[in-house]
């Protein structure tokens, strides 16, 4: 019975481990980590868009308004994140993060073509590529990160394919969309790696918590056995002395001896579990 239970418990644990291993994409970051990721993304956008405004002012013909609006949106998101910082949640962090992404992608869609036409040194879709990598690093959830990387990639890809005139495209973005695709794939890989790592960290934390619980249980067993064994020894010696006395009441002593045997069996069960726990703790 005991060994069957141990086997089924080990099987269940193995199944749980393998189940967890195949579902890294379902890993939920802690509320604080998700909140921090969304905050970094919004801060990055706010600072990045202010830099964009400074750059745009030196290039006549490129509108600064989209970057200013996006910086303002990022500022609002930062204020929201700051006000709600004591009650963080993954859901709110994800919504904030996606709003921030939409804001950035909109700015890029509105300015990419202007840059391509007016700025001879424009590196095609540089901000989009950067967005793919940043998303992998700070997204508050796997699916949110994946959606934002795909949004960055497809927005730029479709813009290139549909809205870029052929001559502009051949002048400034001849190699695209392959570099764009490479960055998007790198972003996805980095995202997978990050959440796989988060999964391992959570598993380690889980195992450590189990180990602490097992050690507590082992100590409880030890204390129970320690408290129980001295009285058992007293009964053992008393039975022996009574049996050897001149006026031994044999039937009564046999009864006590029988009960003592049952207590010995309980003790041996405790010893067995104690050994198992020691073995698991050492693993």
């Amino acid at each position, binding site marked *: 019975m005991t060994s069957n239970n141990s086997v089924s418990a080990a099987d269940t644990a193995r199944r749980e481990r393998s189940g967890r291993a195949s579902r890294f994409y379902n890993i939920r970051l802690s509320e604080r980590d998700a909140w921090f990721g969304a905050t970094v993304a919004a801060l990055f956008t706010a600072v990045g868009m202010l830099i964009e405004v400074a750059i745009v002012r030196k290039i006549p013909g490129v509108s600064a308004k989209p970057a200013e609006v996006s910086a303002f949106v990022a500022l609002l998101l930062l204020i929201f994140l700051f006000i709600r910082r004591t009650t963080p949640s993954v859901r709110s962090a994800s919504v904030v993060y996606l709003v921030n992404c939409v804001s950035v992608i909109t700015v890029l869609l509105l300015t990419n073509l202007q840059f391509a036409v007016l700025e001879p040194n424009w590196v095609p879709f540089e901000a989009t590529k950067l967005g793919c990598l940043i998303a992998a690093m700070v997204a508050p959830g796997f699916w949110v990160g994946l959606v934002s990387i795909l949004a960055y990639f497809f927005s730029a890809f479709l813009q290139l394919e549909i809205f870029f005139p052929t001559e502009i495209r051949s002048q400034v973005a001849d190699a695209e969309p392959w570099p764009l695709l490479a960055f998007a794939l790198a972003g996805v890989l980095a995202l997978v790696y990050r959440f796989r790592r988060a999964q391992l960290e959570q598993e380690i934390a889980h195992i450590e918590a189990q180990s602490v619980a097992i050690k507590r249980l082992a100590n409880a067993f030890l204390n129970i*056995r320690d408290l129980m064994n*001295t009285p058992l020894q007293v009964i*053992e010696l008393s039975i022996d002395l009574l049996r050897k006395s001149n006026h031994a009441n044999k039937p009564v002593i046999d009864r006590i001896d029988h009960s003592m045997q049952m207590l010995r069996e309980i003790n041996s069960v405790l010893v067995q579990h104690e050994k198992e726990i020691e073995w698991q703790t050492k693993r």
Partner: protein
Amino acid sequence: MIKEPAKIVFLDDSEDLRALMPVLLASTLKEECRCFASLMEFKNHAEEVLRARVAILDINLGPNVPDGVDAFHWLMEHGFQGKVLFFTGHARTNPQVALAQKHGVAIMEKPLHPDKLISVVRHALSETP
């Protein structure tokens, strides 16, 4: 007439065991056994304790007091020539007890059948001069 010192000393915090052990050993081995409740008591009777041939030591002597392993170290430091037997409820898990085992100290786990207990003590007595 000078009284012979006890060949067996027993250190245990259980009053019941301290009452029964001398009776058992006297009735079976015909040997006197002196019992002590703490290391302090042990030290107060250092001369008698150190002349004994077998020392039976419980490990856990109560909360926040020196334990049987401390008593073992005290015996070794004072040149005890006899045999030491640990008599405890959870011997295997104490690393110091495992270390003492390497120095030839035997361990008896409670609850032990009286016949086995007597056999171990008899064997220990036979091994000491």
